[in-house]
């Protein structure tokens, strides 16, 4: 059972448990979803009640954050490579479509128009030279400054566009950039559409604002987002995918009508955008979507989203995506072999998770685990 589902049905699930303990359980569930998001751990298919089952009562979970962390990271160790591999397989499957996308993007007017950039720079250089050749009385220092600034700016822009053009003519470079994004863990690549690359967040985005001194403690599950990155304009647009909330045109404190407000990171983003650096662009998008501060001047405060229960319906694309993920695949002999190896690795990892000694674990390591007792303190 997933966290949001448990919270929604808390009265049934925690029936017969005293209210203070139920509150502790909810806090722990919120803790699990926050840590999972921060560490890019996809727990959307995990039965949380089973995974973190407490020995003391059948319908409760453990509350000690150290034990929770250990279970979560063992799970992550077992699964992260398989998840990344799946995303990379999707990427390689999309290679033919990516080639078409690249051709489309490269043939676009935007890139053809870039040829004129060289003559614009040359024009500024000529005007600068002629201004510098004037006598001291006639010379305009403000013109010189302006021409010099424009030459530097446009030259930098042209350099970035050259890198971008190279990327657009070589699909292998593009594939490597996308693989780099996937490998970092925050994003999953799910395909292409027209000239747009499609990424979803690896887990639900959990936003929080905490200030123990000011007794501020806000935390909200904002759901999984889809970001379409246009290869021509290098513009990322954010869409709902699964479990999102909406307040008029906003689906995130920093997103209005799909457009992200980058705040103090705009110059970094713009720099990455002009170079066509997909890894940096997606990194910046992830940073802005995954963090919150009311000081940044969001479109809507986190508080606005806190009490919203009007969850946006899962998109058809998301439903199709998750249905496909759940479908068992026909495997080749090589895959079967790989699977048999990874199954062993997974069973060892999970054995560790649920407290059984893995086949290859040293006695000392396992004894260390056993000697620790779970206390009931909640760290959330």
């Amino acid at each position: 059972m997933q966290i949001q589902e448990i919270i929604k049905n808390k009265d049934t699930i925690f029936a017969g448990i005293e209210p203070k303990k139920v509150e502790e359980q909810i806090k722990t569930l919120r803790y699990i979803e926050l840590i999972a998001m921060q560490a890019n751990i996809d727990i959307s298919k995990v039965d949380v009640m089973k995974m973190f089952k407490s020995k003391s009562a059948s319908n409760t979970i453990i509350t000690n954050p150290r034990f929770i962390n250990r279970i979560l990271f063992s799970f992550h160790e077992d699964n992260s490579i398989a998840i990344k591999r799946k995303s990379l397989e999707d990427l390689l499957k999309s290679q033919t479509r990516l080639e078409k996308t690249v051709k489309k993007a490269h043939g676009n007017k935007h890139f053809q128009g870039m040829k004129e950039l060289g003559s614009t720079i040359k024009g500024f250089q000529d005007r600068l030279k002629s201004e510098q050749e004037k006598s001291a009385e006639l010379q305009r220092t403000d013109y010189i400054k302006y021409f010099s600034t424009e030459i530097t700016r446009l030259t930098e822009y042209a350099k970035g566009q050259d890198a971008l053009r190279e990327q657009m003519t070589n699909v292998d470079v593009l594939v490597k950039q996308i693989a780099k994004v996937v490998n970092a863990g925050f994003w999953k690549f799910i395909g292409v559409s027209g000239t747009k690359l499609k990424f979803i967040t690896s887990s639900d985005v959990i936003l929080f604002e905490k200030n123990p001194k000011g007794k501020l403690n806000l935390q909200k599950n904002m759901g999984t987002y889809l970001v379409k990155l246009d290869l021509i304009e290098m513009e990322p647009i954010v869409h709902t995918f699964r479990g999102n909330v909406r307040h008029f045109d906003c689906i995130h404190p920093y997103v209005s009508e799909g457009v992200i407000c980058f705040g103090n990171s705009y110059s970094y983003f713009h720099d990455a955008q002009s170079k066509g650096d997909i890894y940096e662009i997606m990194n910046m998008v992830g940073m802005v979507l995954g963090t919150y501060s009311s000081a940044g001047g969001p479109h809507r405060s986190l508080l606005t989203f806190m009490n919203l229960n009007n969850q946006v319906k899962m998109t058809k694309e998301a439903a199709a995506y998750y249905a496909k993920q759940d479908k068992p695949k026909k495997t080749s002999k090589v895959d079967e072999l790989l699977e048999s190896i990874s199954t062993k690795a997974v069973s060892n990892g999970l054995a560790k998770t649920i407290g059984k000694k893995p086949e290859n674990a040293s006695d000392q390591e396992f004894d260390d685990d056993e000697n620790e007792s779970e206390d009931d303190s909640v760290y959330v």
Partner: protein
Amino acid sequence: MAKAKKVTAQVLGGETQVLDCCATVQDAFEDLGLDGSYTATVNGEPVDFDHELSDYEFLCFSPAVKGGC
């Protein structure tokens, strides 16, 4: 000051790393080779850089990115 074992550390958006010998958040910051302006949380709670780490905690560094308009 006792050094914490098996602290899982991460820069938001990146891969997790297990640090085996860090006393404070500042030690972990240096171990990860970070530089610049970051905020830190330990087990999801905001902390200062002189916060002492314990075994099996989760430390997350976020660059001081503030989205906004």
